[in-house]
């Protein structure tokens, strides 16, 4: 995830410098160039929000307009003399408005998010148009926005102002690219791929979504302020629904997730807008043509122009690493290396067990999935949880990690109550879980998958480290290497996870849990789907892991459980059936009955 090259920056600089000398000869103009860059600046933020994080907002006009009208109002009414200061204040207030809308919107996914951002965009539009029209000029907008000065020198409209815009755009691009390749950016991508797992390994998903939403709002607000400055006039349609819609269309046409895509899309849009309109008979149809192109892109070519070019370049220039048949398909090797882990939690009570369930119950409507289950897990032991299908094992695991809130009862980690903290906080305290069904970041490589988990350990639930490179934290990289080695995934470290064979996906699943450096590791059916050879080595791995940490295992492979576990808890129909040493359990009549299906007194009527 490190920005390995500065080639995109260099290319951009060349294009920005060449554009004013070439485009006017190809049907463009300096004014068009300025508008393109202005759209491009909103687009940089929007692409971080939608392209990187997957949050489709239809309300960017609200922040664009806020930034624009605040700056224009301050300047036109001589509240502030400095254009730069006015831009700064406008951008800040736009970001603040973004924070307000974001708080309400990011808790919701997909559909809700789009609807709420759209609605707040309209709210801003109506605010500007009527109640605030005394300040914003209502439908007339605000004319007379002055140009900025640098060192007392006026920057004249036209070419000089273009250079200012180009410089700001360039800085905005460099910053956005840094953000994309920072640990923060890596987590944004993880949220897009699998928000659930991102939270499970210990990141606060809502906090990251809110942060990127505010960043996008800041970009939009800055662009709004600049619009007034280079046009000398702040138009009211900055707030219009069409502005948000146009941004979405431009981004899709130009290429989602490429940063430069929205700018490319704006170029296409404005070029067609300015030139097609001059052609009689076609002029009125230019939006229809763009609409058809847009639908075609959504249906078929989903990369957009910049995305398509980028993919083509990547195919040409790089040898894509994929798992080839020549690579050794090895199972997890016998682990010798001690994996680093989180320092154990300071305990409330020296004798407290590592993990302790007290009267845990979970009801789904009338279904009592888990009912009054209590047991404790000794530190450094392997604890097995068994039971027939539907006994409530997976639900119990979700309760132990606080993935779902219990109906009653509580869980204690080293004597400390963790119920109610949620999965991200419990991960930070040292509980990790590998899931029965894989929860992977499929488009990311194995290394990147593990990095998402390892980053949680070193960074806490949220950190705004926008400028450092994602792969630049030595402790995180060491942890990744250790997990790659332990899980036998080193030879496929840089292959995208979705191309891996099932057994290796399974090992990546466990590896992600391990990479958080837990001191209590919950493994939900770790052996499921593994080959016999892999089972043998994974059993060895589990034994090895138990040297340094506490393990709780749900498994249907009875041989494995009875061989590994020091203590076994048996669930049946949501209730605790037995709890004891393996020898006790294997002799227990009720357990034998449960597995033979003859448990009459426990059978529901």
């Amino acid at each position: 995830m490190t920005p390995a090259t500065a080639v995109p920056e260099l290319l951009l600089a060349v294009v920005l410098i060449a554009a004013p000398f070439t485009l006017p000869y190809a049907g463009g103009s300096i004014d068009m160039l300025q508008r393109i860059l202005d759209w491009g600046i909103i687009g940089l933020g929007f692409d971080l929000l939608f392209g990187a994080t997957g949050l489709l907002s239809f309300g960017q006009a609200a922040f664009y307009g806020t930034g624009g009208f605040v700056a224009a109002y301050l300047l036109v009414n001589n509240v502030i003399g400095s254009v730069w200061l006015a831009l700064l204040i406008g951008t800040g207030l736009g970001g603040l408005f973004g924070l307000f809308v974001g708080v309400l919107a990011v808790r919701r996914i997909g559909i809700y998010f789009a609807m709420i951002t759209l609605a707040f965009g309209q709210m801003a539009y109506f605010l500007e148009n009527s109640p605030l029209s005394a300040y914003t000029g209502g439908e007339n907008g605000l004319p007379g926005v002055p140009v900025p000065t640098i060192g007392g020198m006026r920057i004249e409209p036209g070419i000089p102002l273009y250079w200012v815009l180009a410089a700001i755009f360039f800085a905005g691009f460099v910053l956005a690219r840094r953000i994309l390749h920072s640990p923060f950016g890596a987590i944004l991508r993880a949220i897009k791929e699998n928000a659930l797992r991102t939270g499970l390994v210990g990141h606060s998903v809502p906090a990251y979504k809110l942060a990127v939403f505010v960043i996008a709002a800041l970009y939009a607000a800055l662009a709004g302020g600049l619009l007034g400055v280079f046009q000398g006039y702040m138009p009211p349609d900055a707030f219009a629904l069409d502005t948000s819609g146009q941004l979405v269309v431009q981004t899709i046409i130009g290429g989602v997730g490429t940063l430069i895509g929205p700018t490319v899309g704006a170029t296409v849009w404005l070029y067609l807008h300015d030139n097609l309109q001059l052609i009689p008979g076609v002029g009125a149809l230019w939006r229809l043509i763009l609409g058809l192109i847009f639908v075609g892109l959504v249906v078929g070519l989903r990369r957009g122009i910049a995305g398509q070019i980028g993919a083509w370049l990547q195919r040409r220039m790089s040898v894509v690493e994929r798992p080839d048949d020549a690579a050794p398909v090895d199972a997890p090797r016998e682990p010798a290396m001690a994996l680093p882990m989180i320092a154990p939690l300071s305990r409330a009570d020296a004798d407290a067990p590592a993990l302790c369930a007290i009267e845990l119950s979970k009801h789904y409507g009338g279904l009592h999935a888990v009912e009054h289950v209590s047991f404790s897990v000794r530190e450094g032991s392997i604890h097995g949880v068994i039971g027939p299908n539907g006994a409530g094992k997976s639900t119990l695991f979700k309760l132990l990690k606080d993935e779902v809130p219990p109906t009653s009862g509580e869980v204690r980690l080293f004597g400390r109550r963790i119920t109610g903290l949620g999965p991200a906080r419990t991960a930070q305290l040292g509980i990790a879980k590998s899931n029965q069904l894989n929860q992977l970041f499929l488009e990311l490589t194995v290394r990147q998958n593990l990095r998402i988990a390892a980053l949680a350990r070193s960074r806490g639930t949220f950190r705004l480290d926008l400028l450092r490179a994602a792969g630049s934290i030595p402790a995180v990289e060491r942890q990744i290497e250790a997990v790659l080695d332990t899980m036998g995934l080193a030879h496929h470290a840089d292959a995208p996870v979705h191309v891996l064979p099932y057994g290796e996906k399974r090992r990546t699943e466990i590896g992600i849990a391990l990479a958080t450096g837990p001191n209590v590791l919950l493994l939900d059916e770790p052996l499921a789907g593994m080959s016999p050879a892999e089972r043998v080595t994974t059993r060895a791995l589990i034994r090895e892991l138990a040297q340094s940490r506490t393990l709780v295992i749900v498994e249907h492979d009875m041989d494995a459980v009875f061989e590994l576990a020091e203590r076994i808890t048996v669930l049946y129909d949501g209730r605790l059936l037995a709890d004891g040493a393996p020898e006790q359990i294997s002799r227990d009549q009720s357990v034998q009955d449960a597995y033979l299906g003859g448990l009459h007194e426990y059978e529901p009527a």
Partner: protein
Amino acid sequence: MPSLPLLLSQAFNGLALGTLLALVSSGLTIILGTLGVLNFAHGALFMVGAYAIFVVAAATGSFVVGLLVGAVIMLAVGVMLERVLIRFFYDRPHEDQILVTFGAAIVIVEAVRAVFGGESQRVAAPDWGGGVTQLGFLIYPTYRLELIGIVAALLFALYVVLYRTSIGLVVRAGIEDARTVGILGINVRRAFLLVFAIGVVAAGVAGMLYAPIVSVDPDMGATFMVESFVVIVIGGLGSYPGAVVGGLIAGEILSITSAFNAAYSEVMLYAVMALLLVVRPQGLLGSEGRV
């Protein structure tokens, strides 16, 4: 403080607007609830309805014929849209569904603009809807009273279809879990087509009924659509009763506020939505954890 007659008349305006919003929103919400698709083309389809009656009523001279033919046109548009575009998106991410319906909306609006031009058109109220009615405490335009009655009847008919027929049962089961319904051997895809078409007809009929009291232009659907988004956020995502209740509440908020200060009517609607999102994020009649 506005006078009592003004408030009363605004309350009736709110009812007329509210029932229409309820009709548009219920189309949106059954599509959303059943198909899981947020239809960004809903406003455009509302506008198509208004143009359908503009054309047919002018050609035949009858508003009722216009309504009936218009409904058939909308049905055809709905079926076509589902077959050509929407059905390929059931398994795609929500964001793609939003984008494709948003794109369809642009194409529809621009196609209408290309055919009819951008200027606004007028649709005459039917002869039986002319003049005003003396309610004793209020004199009120007859057409708006009839409008309230017609839309209420349509909403009731939709309720009967959804809650009292076996097709409705399939649809409501599909809202809960489309996969299971499919496994049970019921053709869910056909139910989906039906639901989409009904939703489109609801939007279109609302557009037709609304046409005589506003000016008809290609962009008329946008505001109405955003308002119906607010309605289903207020009422609860995918809930039919929520759409009706939310629609009535939204209509009254818009109308009553404008009796005090017209500048704030839209703003007030969004403020109420924001407040509700804080206090009860799942909406008035929505259940937590859905969609």
